[in-house]
């Protein structure tokens, strides 16, 4: 009785100051369309959940990590050997990072194939692509932080690629590396990007992305009639399902982290020759292999330059999808977009595998 009264009083007090019943009201009206492609709606939620895990484990790792050349590797080793459950937290952070990027890719392709980028969701799409970029930047910067041999040399290669961008390359390379070569200055920089700049950018973009989703509601694929489609309440029906999926993701993540603990490797030695088989994280494999494949000169251009132009064009096409993939009446050019997306997906898959094998 007393408990119930306390809740009521608190609730009323908060209502007077926050007006949160309005929120509750809005939430109770939020619905999710139910149709044959409803399961694709979960991937955004999974990405959000994994991102939350990244923030939690990332903050935990920050307690012990030291971003200097002398101490970075040893502090990660310290986390893994001396700190209780440090191996688990670090392993989860690494695995979750990879799963997150994978889920973001799945989310992106599901949006393409269900043509959810159509008006009025252009900004949702654009912020999503920006988030994908931020997540990849997270991956690139975080990869260097343990300062082990493989990450050191992979970062060297990655920074060299960035430095060969036309016009801005030299400046960009210096900006990324904090000098002319990957060294202590790079580590400090990447650390700053990884724990300050990128999180701020990601959270800002994410807020916008989520607000836009609330504003415009869930999109229904063009082949399903907006009028006839049945809806599911977000609270509690869809939300409970999401919880199930998140729990499942957590189980998979924990299992991966415990059964396949993320390796520490060997401390980077900048003066050692680059070991054989240097390759970047899997999500950079396709562009990495493409650059390797392009001959050094194509017609009048340098091969690498051509590759970078290609990726720039690809990024531009992705961002502008709502412009070129939509007719004047607002309907999607489904065939063309599907074709392009299949092409892109198969390119990514095939080149990633080739990049991994070779």
């Amino acid at each position, binding site marked *: 009785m007393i408990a119930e009264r306390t809740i009521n009083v608190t609730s009323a007090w908060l209502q007077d100051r926050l007006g949160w019943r309005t929120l509750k009201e809005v939430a109770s*009206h939020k*619905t999710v369309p*139910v149709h044959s492609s409803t399961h694709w709606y979960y991937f955004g939620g999974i990405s959000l959940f994994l991102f939350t895990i990244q923030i939690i484990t990332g903050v935990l790792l920050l307690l012990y990590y030291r971003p200097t050349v002398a101490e970075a590797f040893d502090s990660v*080793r310290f986390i*893994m*050997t*001396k700190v209780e459950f440090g*191996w*688990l937290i*670090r392993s989860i952070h690494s695995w979750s990072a990879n799963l997150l990027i994978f889920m973001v890719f799945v989310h992106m392709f599901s949006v393409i194939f269900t043509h959810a980028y159509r008006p009025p969701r252009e900004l949702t799409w654009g912020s999503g692509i920006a988030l994908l970029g931020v997540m990849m930047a997270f991956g690139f910067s975080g990869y260097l932080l343990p300062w082990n041999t493989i990450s050191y040399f992979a970062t060297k290669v990655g920074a060299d690629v960035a430095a060969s961008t036309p016009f801005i390359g030299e400046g960009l390379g210096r900006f990324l590396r904090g000098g002319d070569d990957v060294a202590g200055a790079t580590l400090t920089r990447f650390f700053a990007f990884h724990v300050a700049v990128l999180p701020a950018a990601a959270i800002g973009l994410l807020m916008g992305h989520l607000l836009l989703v609330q504003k415009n509601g869930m999109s229904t694929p063009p082949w399903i009639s907006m*009028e006839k*489609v*049945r*809806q*599911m*309440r977000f609270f*509690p*029906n869809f939300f*409970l*399902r999401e*919880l*199930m999926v998140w*729990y*499942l993701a*957590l*189980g998979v993540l*924990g*299992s991966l982290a*415990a*059964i396949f*603990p993320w*390796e*520490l*490797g060997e401390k980077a030695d900048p003066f050692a020759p680059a070991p054989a088989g240097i390759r970047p994280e899997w999500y950079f494999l396709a562009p990495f292999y493409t650059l390797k494949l392009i001959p050094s000169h194509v017609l009048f251009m340098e091969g690498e330059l051509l590759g970078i132009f290609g990726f720039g064009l690809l990024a531009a096409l992705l961002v502008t999808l709502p412009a070129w993939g939509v007719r004047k009446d607002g309907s999607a050019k489904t065939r063309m977009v599907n074709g392009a997306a299949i092409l892109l997906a198969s390119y990514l898959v095939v080149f990633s595998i080739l990049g991994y094998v070779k």
Partner: protein
Amino acid sequence: MRTIRWLPLLASIALLPAKDSCVECHSNLDGNLQRPAALFKGDVHAVSHLSCAGCHGGDANSDDPTVAMSPAKGFRGKVARTGIPKLCASCHSDPNYMRKYRPQQRVDQYQLYLTSVHGKRLEKGDARVATCIDCHSVHDIRAVKDAAAPVHPLKLPATCGHCHADAARMASYKIPTTQLEEYRGSVHWEALTKRGDLSAPNCASCHGNHGAKPPNVESVAAVCGSCHVLHEKFFAQSVHNAAFPSGQGGGCMVCHSNHGIHKPSTAMLAGKDAVCSQCHEADSNGGKMAVQAARRLDGLANALQVSEQQLALADKFGMDIAEAQLRLIEGKESLIKARLALHSFEEQEVGKPVDAGLLIAKETKAAADAALHEKDVRRIGLAASVLFIAVSILALWFLIRRIETNGSATLTRRTIL
């Protein structure tokens, strides 16, 4: 000519070291006559303000060539090869003179030279042997620690080899010319050039420098033992010490050769290329012991390698194995000590460090296995967590089923809005 007249004046005004008309004139000549003057700038004697006249005689103060190079002024011209050691010794064997420049430098080089094969032959009138200038060069003589000096540790082998690897030159002396090539395949050359260890032995370390001569057969062990102290100690007490000095080339050389000393391995003990089998029959005590020693050394080396690999694996997974790694260093030390003890040719001496090492290998392997096991045990904690997750998922599923029992899961748009 005007400039030549003026230069000495300018030099004396500038209070530079005493003028040297030899260098001044010869610098303006061509070819062979100019070269000594050019080279002399880097010479250790020039740095100490000694002049050409010190060796060649004459008057370096006179600008008139006929006066400067007149026999009346003691001009000697080119010094005969047979006279070179004596000439150098006139200063270098004089302690009172040398004290002024290099008080710590030895003054017995000439004495030593007279005892060397080079010196003895030179005394007999053979001018083809090495004199001071053949090793130290002439006109650009540099200190031993100067990396450009031909007697610098890194350059000395090639300097000796300049004559000793020249088959035509050595033909009349009837001595082999393969030493340099052999040496360049040796562990000592590797230590010198690849590890940059300038204290690693070069030719002079064993043969002496000024008193260069092959070490006596009896003294080979002592020569090697000047660095390999403990090996010599073990060997001196072994049965082989008594067996070898009698004319077979000295103890160490029998197994390790001389110039081309390679990294020793157990293949020297057992197998078809074993050095032991050259004297010991396979079924003799010595033959059996050699095979046994090889087996034990290999056994320890393998055991240590296995431990190291396991530890590296555990390390890769971030397991805490620092203690075991430290212990493994001791194990490796045991192997070094066992190899050392082999020079006693006593089974027991070899056995002690091998057993100690094997124990360490076993311990560290166990530590590595325990660490790897610990990695697997972590999965048990995971299993509990996964169970809870599964229960939660199941409960959520039941909850969804319950609140949707009457088909209220989906609604038409209108009912909601």
